């Protein structure tokens, strides 16, 4: 059984017990425990069920690479699935549940899948997609949905907060082990500003467990001294519980700080996303121990050799009484010695090498530990727990020589540098056959904007494994020269072992796990190779090797070695899969930061927004603005309100907050020439104090924006844009000015926010303005399509005589700071005329009744002005404008393009939005032919019937014809092709 030892545990405080629960069972751990170490201390070895076969699983590691010990953590509101027990610091009241078990962890019916293993080979999904479809729907999918999957998705809203933090430094060091500390010290002493991130809650990495001496001090004493030295340097800053998650171009690093996961009562944000710009990045990310591939290597009790001693030294936890160590290198002897020193039995060290004999091996032999050389494990005995191992010759096929009872197997297949951060921006790797590892090539580092490398590796991340090599490498990584002196034991070389035993037959290979989390075995990768998936990237996707939440930290190298063996190729020829950020999963909350709830995105408000809020505005999002769709009165439906607003505006007086419309000042000696290029119309000939409606196209000829342009003076124009277009039309203008016509003398300024603009619309519009008084708004002084500056009721305004409704209409612009006051004044003055504010829907209906097009309704990025019958707004005199040449291409200047018409329903009903008019016959795909589509459609309160605009094949030539529009869900609407101008075609009402 696993248990807490009487002594030891350098990271725990035995005097401070911590209560927690696992699957509802109340347990006790100690301050400083991880969830994994606390469970083990309580003899809870079984921690979960595997993804595919529901095999019993326990920890394999004691660190971030853990594939098995995943938990549902916490309560609703603060729920976290797939939390790694090895990285979860224990806190009072922690609630953990095992994942992927049904009905219970101890007895799982899904484990029957294991018996079906031979029916669930690599590529099962791909193969089964093809087979009888009904099987997929009724048998495979329900079966897979029931059995697959890891953590639960949270159901309640997350009640934690998150934030971002931008930071800058000369050197960002990822990893606070001895290499990272040494690099930080050297860089700090050189006067550089340094940020040091450590993903766990403590400093020094695994060096204190592995031992040795630095500068004559124990490793722990050296760490403490170095931390004190770092803290004396104001230019060095360090954070624990902060993962360097990804390296990006231009020295950008994402850090993921788990601020209060270890103490949910602490307050403040739960996670903080560090967004760091670093001059240089040093990855001191250490190395990961590799498992060995032997049958039954996933049975609870089989762990990495390093993890076995980590649990003893760091947390005072023994995984079992009798530990068999199986290895291809000297490092694992440390585990045997460590366990032995703690009074635990090590019946044997099984060394795959025929020859070994470094200093560690001698010590083991001196300690009386039996070493069986040239041997391997044929298979592990046991189901939910290791009960023994069967020993065989490594060179053979697995014939058992001896069975040794044990309850722990500590395996080591060598070490792989953590090269992920190095590789994120393209750092290259080379296969080191002697050390059996892919390691970074310093001469092929990621290159920054200055042409210089911007990422370096330090310590074990470089492939330096001994303490002396680690510190020397870390010193050099930041340009230092003097590394501390080290005392350490000499080690004999590692020998590559990719299958144990080397000649294992199919039965053993099909029980030898590569990827524990995704249940991928040696036999699966071999099957992929056999079926032609020769590229490592293809084999990965076919088998799902390395595609689990651990991203194959333990399995990648072993998997590609098996693949290369199956292909008869060398490991470097097969290569690695691509390393992508993040290194381990980071929370969605951290990515979102403060952007949630009210701060999810900016909400733009006009100066008059407050009035709308107080007066029943039914809102509509328009870009980031909220505009009133209509103003609801008591008991009124939205449709009734819209209808009321339209009728009142047509019969008396309406007011619209038009402040959101874009307003761009264009000024300079070349402004007229510039606007002639931007608009299809001629704007340079516009007279001061006059307005002109204009169209803007993209260089591909498509209509992109429209609006009224006013000429202010000899060299100044003011361009109105659509609400959504203000920012990008301004950017569009600046782009042309800065990149193409950089020598034209034109300045622009986006003054959208400087002015509130109020449309005063209806037969009584002039009367209300005259009542306010101050400026002459008569037809003579301010004719249709004119503008004039003046004083209106004490406000300094600019009045534009423009109309989007077909009624007598003024748009009054005033400094935004005066907007609300003018609105209130107009409302008060308009009371006797029956004034009613109206919203965007009434605006849309009134312009549709007049046949005015709407950007975004009649246009969708594929429509040119000619399609909309707007030839009158396209200058024939101009040599050029943006879009002109595109519009002359054969498929644009083509009578077969669908053209704008009005549509009037025969029964008075409303055509569904976006409906298509059907034509005879079917197309090549067996679909009904179509001859037109609706672009905007409304119930017209003015006309009392459904009206619409649409694009119809040869439409303008087919006046009076009736088209049929099927409704979704059955039925159809018939509509007659008519002129799009339904209301006041002579335009007498607006020009009075």
């Amino acid at each position, binding site marked *: 059984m696993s248990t807490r030892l009487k002594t030891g545990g350098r990271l725990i405080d035995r005097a401070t017990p911590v209560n927690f629960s696992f699957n509802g069972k109340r347990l006790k751990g100690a301050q400083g425990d991880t969830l994994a170490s606390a469970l083990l201390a309580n003899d809870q070895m079984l921690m979960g069920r595997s993804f595919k076969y529901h095999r019993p699983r326990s920890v394999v590691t004691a660190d971030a690479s853990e594939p098995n010990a995943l938990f549902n953590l916490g309560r609703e509101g603060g729920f976290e699935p797939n939390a790694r027990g090895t990285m979860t610091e224990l806190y009072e009241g922690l609630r953990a549940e095992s994942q992927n078990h049904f009905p219970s962890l101890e007895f799982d019916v899904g484990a029957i899948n294991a018996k079906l293993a031979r029916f669930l080979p690599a590529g099962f999904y791909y193969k089964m997609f093809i087979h009888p479809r009904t099987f997929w729907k009724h048998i495979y999918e329900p079966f897979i949905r029931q059995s697959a999957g890891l953590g639960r998705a949270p159901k309640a809203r997350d009640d934690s*907060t998150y*934030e*971002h*933090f*931008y*930071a*800058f430094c000369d050197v960002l060091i990822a990893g606070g082990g001895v290499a990272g500390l040494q690099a930080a010290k050297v860089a700090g002493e050189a006067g550089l500003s340094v940020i040091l991130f450590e993903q766990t809650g403590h400093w020094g990495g695994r060096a204190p467990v592995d031992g040795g001496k630095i500068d004559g001090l124990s490793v722990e004493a050296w760490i403490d001294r170095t931390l004190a030295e770092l*803290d004396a340097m104001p230019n060095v*800053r*360090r*954070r*624990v519980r902060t993962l360097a998650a990804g390296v990006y171009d231009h020295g950008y690093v994402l850090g993921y700080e788990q601020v209060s996961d270890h103490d949910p009562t602490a*307050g*403040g*944000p739960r996670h*903080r996303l560090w*967004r760091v*710009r670093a001059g240089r990045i040093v990855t001191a990310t250490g190395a990961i121990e590799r498992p060995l591939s032997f049958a039954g290597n996933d049975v609870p009790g089989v762990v990495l050799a390093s993890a076995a001693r980590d649990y003893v030294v760091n947390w005072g936890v023994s995984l079992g009484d009798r530990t068999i160590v199986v290895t291809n290198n000297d490092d694992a002897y440390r585990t045997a010695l460590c366990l032995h020193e703690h009074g635990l039995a090590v019946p044997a060290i099984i060394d795959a090498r025929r020859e070994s004999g470094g200093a560690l091996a001698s010590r083991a032999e001196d300690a009386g530990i039996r070493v069986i050389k040239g041997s391997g494990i044929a298979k592990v005995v046991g189901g939910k727990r290791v009960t023994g191992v069967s020993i065989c010759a490594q060179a053979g096929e697995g014939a058992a020589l001896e069975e040794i009872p044990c309850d722990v197997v500590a395996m080591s297949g060598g070490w792989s540098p953590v090269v992920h951060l190095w590789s994120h921006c393209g750092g290259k790797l080379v296969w080191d056959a002697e050390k059996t590892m892919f390691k970074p090539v310093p001469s092929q580092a990621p290159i920054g904007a200055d042409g210089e490398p911007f990422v370096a590796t330090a310590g074990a991340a470089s492939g330096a494994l001994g303490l002396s090599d680690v510190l020397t490498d870390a010193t050099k990584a930041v340009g230092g020269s003097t590394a501390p002196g080290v005392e350490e034991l000499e080690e004999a070389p590692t020998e590559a072992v990719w299958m144990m035993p080397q000649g294992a037959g199919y039965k053993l290979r099909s029980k030898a796990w590569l990827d524990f989390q995704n249940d991928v075995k040696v036999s699966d990768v071999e099957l992929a190779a056999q079926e032609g998936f020769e590229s490592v990237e293809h084999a990965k996707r076919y088998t799902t090797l390395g595609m689990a939440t651990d991203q194959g930290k333990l399995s990648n190298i072993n998997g590609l070695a098996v693949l290369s063996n199956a292909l008869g190729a060398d490991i470097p020829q097969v290569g690695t899969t691509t390393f992508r950020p993040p290194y381990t999963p980071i929370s969605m909350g951290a990515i979102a*930061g*403060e*952007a949630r709830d*009210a*701060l999810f*995105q*900016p*909400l*733009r*408000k*006009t*100066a008059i927004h407050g009035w709308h809020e107080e007066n029943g505005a039914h809102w509509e999002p328009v870009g*980031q*603005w909220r505009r009133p769709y209509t103003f609801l009165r008591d008991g009124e439906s939205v449709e009734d309100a819209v209808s009321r607003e339209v009728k009142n505006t047509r019969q008396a007086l309406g007011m619209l907050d038009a402040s959101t419309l874009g307003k761009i*000042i264009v*000024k*300079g*000696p070349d402004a007229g020439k510039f606007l002639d290029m931007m608009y299809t119309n001629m704007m340079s000939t516009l007279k001061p104090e006059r307005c002109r409606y204009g169209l803007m196209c993209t260089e591909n000829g498509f209509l992109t924006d429209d609006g009224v342009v006013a000429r202010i003076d000899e060299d100044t124009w003011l361009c109105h844009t659509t609400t959504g277009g203000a920012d990008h039309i301004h950017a569009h203008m600046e782009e042309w000015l800065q990149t193409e016509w950089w020598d034209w*003398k034109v*300045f*622009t*300024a986006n*003054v*959208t*926010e*400087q*002015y509130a603009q109020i449309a005063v619309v209806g037969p009584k519009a002039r009367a209300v303005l005259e009542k306010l008084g101050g400026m002459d708004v008569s037809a003579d002084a301010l004719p249709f399509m004119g503008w004039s500056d003046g004083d209106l009721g004490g406000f300094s305004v600019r009045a534009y005589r423009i109309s989007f409704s077909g009624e007598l209409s003024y748009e009054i612009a005033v*400094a*935004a*700071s*005066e907007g609300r006051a003018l609105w209130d004044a107009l409302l008060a003055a308009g009371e006797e005329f029956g004034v009613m504010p109206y919203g965007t829907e009434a605006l849309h209906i009134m312009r549709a009744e007049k046949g005015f097009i709407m950007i975004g309704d009649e246009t969708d990025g594929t429509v040119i002005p000619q399609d909309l019958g707007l030839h009158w707004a396209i200058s024939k005199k101009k040599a050029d404008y943006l879009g002109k040449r595109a519009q002359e291409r054969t498929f644009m200047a083509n009578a077969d393009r669908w053209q704008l018409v009005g549509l009037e329903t025969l029964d008075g009903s409303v055509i569904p939005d976006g409906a298509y008019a059907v034509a005879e016959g079917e197309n090549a795909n067996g679909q009904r032919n179509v001859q037109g589509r609706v672009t905007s459609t409304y119930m017209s309160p003015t006309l009392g019937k459904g009206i619409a605009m649409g694009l119809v094949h040869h439409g303008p030539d087919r006046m009076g014809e009736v088209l049929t529009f099927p409704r979704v869900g059955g039925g159809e609407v018939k509509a007659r092709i008519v002129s799009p101008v339904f209301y006041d075609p002579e335009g007498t009402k607006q020009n009075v």
Partner: protein
Amino acid sequence: MSERTFEGAASIRQLPPRGMITLRGDLGDLAAAVIVPETGHIAGHVAWMSPDELLVICAQEEVGERVTTYRDALTGTHHLVQDVSAARATFEISGPHAGETLAKLCPVDVAAMAPGAFRRTRLAQVACAFWVREEGGFDLVCFASVADYAWGVLRNAAAHPVGHFEPRR
């Protein structure tokens, strides 16, 4: 815009409206109207916005006269003078952790900015500019339509603890 204050890790205050005038032109030409500040700085009441744009910040009641004075001074050169006073909202962020509060929202090396340094950047999801005042602390301007959003994110940032490197651990 309403004045409002919040006390947290930093003090956040929305200031009463100020006069603001955009000047565009060759900076050499604009020197006829104002004293042109160094690139990326604010000097006196004039801020450097871009290689051909300055922003004058003044009392509201001065705007009319200044606009006229600048237009007169720039007669004969290609320029644009525009009152933008009503387009902007202004905030003051002060206190020992003002810089770290801004660093939660703006991708700027705030610590490297000396008094008089001026940056155009973004505040979470909206455009903004801010500068370091001579007496310490920051003034920040953004568009008036997003004043509530800016207030919201600044308040939210100041509501949570800052001082990430103190105490050192």
